[in-house]
């Protein structure tokens, strides 16, 4: 494998454009001592080559008077081309007037004919190339003040220049410090900075044989371009060892995402984006410190992008299907239909049925869940109205309210409008909020829930038992129903601990004076156990899976008989 060489070492390519072969050969002979030389016999041929195989030209040496396309025409065309306009041009002429005109048009310099001494020509070419490359780089500050590594912009620009001339196989590495914000918060900025320096030094020390260039970006993220390595395991282990040996504030853990041997025609930023996707994937996973970007991950990120892109169409085309699962009151001998939960499915026109598990966490992470929630609220409300009109019977339906909705100041207005449009009472559209949302932002959530309850909405706390509510918090919760996390129901017959927890949660509900809904009930024996323990409401396959609205009607009709 070729060793990568620095920007100062590699041979740049220059193009001589002149219709006179003698001139081309003579100048080519001079320039070949320092550069790889490409020839074109007129402006048109140069233009075609620059748009074809000759993509990495550092300098154009251009004659002015030529057939087909002359030098002035070529300069004008280059000026309008975003990719090519940055290539510096030295005009070759014997005419004083032409010198002025070409400089005004944007030429960097000129060489007079007959040619100056070769040393003069070479010096001019060298100066113009250097000037041009530095101008491109000068837009960004070269070094990060904290670590002394390159800055992100410089890093990418440098790689582009290097790669234009080299074809070695390289890998993109992204490193991120776990919980770096806590270091800053707990020990102060100065300590945080010293941690960054230590990471930079450690990366450099361990990867020095293979590293080509590295930079720091986004506070605690480091990018490294390395010559290809098949297995990074020993390198990563060494890095962790050096960083993990310290104590207190200096003890840190790095995560690495690696994208190996990307095709050179892929933009360099994109390669690092992919390494970062791999790196982000193991955030919070303490069993892993390195992840490789692979096709599966690529497919997954493409799939996610697709879902994000299609969400608006799905709403407009009603590809989201709202299903209803009945909840039965089991306090009397005959179970009685009490309400339903609205659950979403995505019938994608091209991808088929998409599981909520695939898109709900994704949309929760980027806020799109608000659109989906809003759609479910409207659809559910409209369905409640239709059933009321058809059966003169009201089935209360609970809908999910995501954590992000809670922070939406227009939440109450949105819900009110939906109720008004469908002539419903607030008690008919019940709102489910997960326990984890309570635990994350107790104060805001309590305020919002109280305000919703004051307007007549019923609040159900979903997945109770899976979050981390404190006993103190539970006693002050503004809720109307507790929903028992389905994993307790599933496990309560298998292990004593789950059964005890179910008992405890039902006791808490009694203390709060709210009913308990048990989800995920599949068998008669589960139902009996829950009933014995004092659970009032059951939801699950024992009664029915979630079904489309028209299928749900059988439950209403049965109830009415």
């Amino acid at each position, binding site marked *: 494998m070729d060793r990568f060489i620095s920007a100062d070492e590699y041979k740049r390519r220059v193009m001589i454009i002149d219709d*006179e072969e003698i*001139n081309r050969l003579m100048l080519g*002979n001079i320039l070949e001592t320092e550069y790889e030389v490409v020839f074109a016999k007129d402006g048109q041929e140069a233009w075609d080559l620059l748009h074809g195989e000759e993509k990495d030209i550092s300098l154009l040496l251009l004659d002015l008077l030529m057939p087909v396309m002359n030098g002035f025409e070529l300069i004008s065309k280059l000026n309008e081309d975003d990719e090519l306009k940055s290539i510096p041009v030295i005009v070759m002429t*014997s005419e004083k007037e032409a010198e002025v005109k070409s400089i005004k048009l944007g030429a960097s310099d000129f060489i007079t004919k007959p040619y100056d001494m070769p040393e003069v020509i070479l010096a001019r070419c060298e100066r113009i190339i250097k000037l041009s490359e530095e101008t491109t780089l000068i837009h960004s500050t070269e070094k990060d003040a904290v670590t002394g590594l390159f800055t992100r912009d410089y890093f990418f620009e440098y790689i582009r220049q290097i790669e234009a001339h080299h074809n070695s196989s390289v890998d993109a590495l992204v490193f991120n410090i776990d919980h770096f914000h806590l270091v800053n918060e707990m020990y102060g900025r100065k300590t945080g900075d010293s941690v960054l320096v230590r990471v930079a030094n450690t990366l450099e020390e361990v990867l020095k044989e293979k590293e080509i260039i590295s930079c720091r970006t986004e506070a605690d993220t480091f990018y490294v371009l390395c010559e290809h390595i098949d297995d990074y395991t020993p390198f990563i282990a060494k890095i962790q060892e050096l960083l993990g040996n310290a104590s207190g504030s200096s003890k840190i853990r790095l995560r690495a995402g690696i994208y190996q041997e990307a095709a050179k025609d892929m933009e360099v930023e994109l390669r690092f984006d992919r390494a970062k996707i791999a790196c982000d994937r193991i955030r919070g996973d303490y069993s892993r410190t390195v992840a490789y970007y692979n096709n599966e991950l690529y497919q997954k990120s493409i799939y996610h992008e697709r879902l994000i892109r299609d969400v608006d169409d799905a709403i407009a085309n009603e590809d989201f299907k709202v299903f209803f699962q009945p909840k039965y009151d089991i306090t009397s001998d005959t179970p009685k239909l009490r309400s339903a939960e609205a659950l979403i499915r995505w019938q994608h026109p091209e991808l088929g049925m998409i599981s909520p598990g695939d898109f709900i966490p994704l949309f929760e992470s980027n806020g799109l869940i608000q659109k989906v929630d809003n759609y479910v609220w409207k659809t559910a409300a409209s369905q409640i109205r239709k059933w009321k009109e058809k059966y003169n019977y009201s089935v209360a339906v609970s809908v999910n309210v995501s954590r992000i909705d809670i922070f939406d100041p227009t939440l109450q207005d949105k819900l009110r409008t939906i109720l008004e449009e469908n002539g419903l009472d607030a008690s008919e559209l019940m709102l489910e909020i997960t326990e984890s949302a309570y635990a994350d932002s107790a104060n805001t959530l309590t305020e919002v829930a109280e305000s919703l309850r004051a307007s007549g909405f019923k609040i159900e706390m979903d997945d109770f038992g899976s979050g981390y509510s404190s006993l103190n918090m539970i006693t002050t919760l503004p809720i109307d129903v507790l929903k028992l996390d389905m994993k307790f129901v599933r496990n309560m017959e298998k292990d004593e601990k789950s059964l005890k927890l179910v008992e405890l949660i039902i006791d808490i509900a009694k203390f709060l004076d709210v009913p308990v809904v048990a989800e995920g009930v599949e068998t008669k024996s589960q139902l009996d156990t829950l009933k014995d323990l004092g659970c009032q409401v059951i939801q699950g396959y024992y009664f029915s899976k979630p079904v489309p609205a028209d299928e749900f009607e059988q439950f209403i009709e049965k109830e009415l008989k």
Partner: protein
Amino acid sequence: MLTIEKLNEYGANTKEGLARCMGNETLYLRLVTSLTAQPDFDRMREQIADHDLASAFESAHAMKGVLANLSITPLYEKVCEITELLRSREETDYQPLLEEIDTLRKTLKELVEN
């Protein structure tokens, strides 16, 4: 076969021409040899005959550049003269100058061929 000596006798500034070829004598002689087959001379003659002085100027100008680079001084000087006349589109009798240029070309050709 063309040699540096022959070119010196002809009046070329071979020192200068060779310097532009980085001292590469083979290349220099090869380039001078190829000069005898330059189509620009004949093209210019035809263009003048057609009174297309603008095109003739371009041909003359191209030749001038090449001759300057190779430092073929005698021919260069004559081509310079005709280039300047053509630049100002001078309606003059170009024949004497063309003949002088032709003679110098023939001499050069003889140096190459003998």
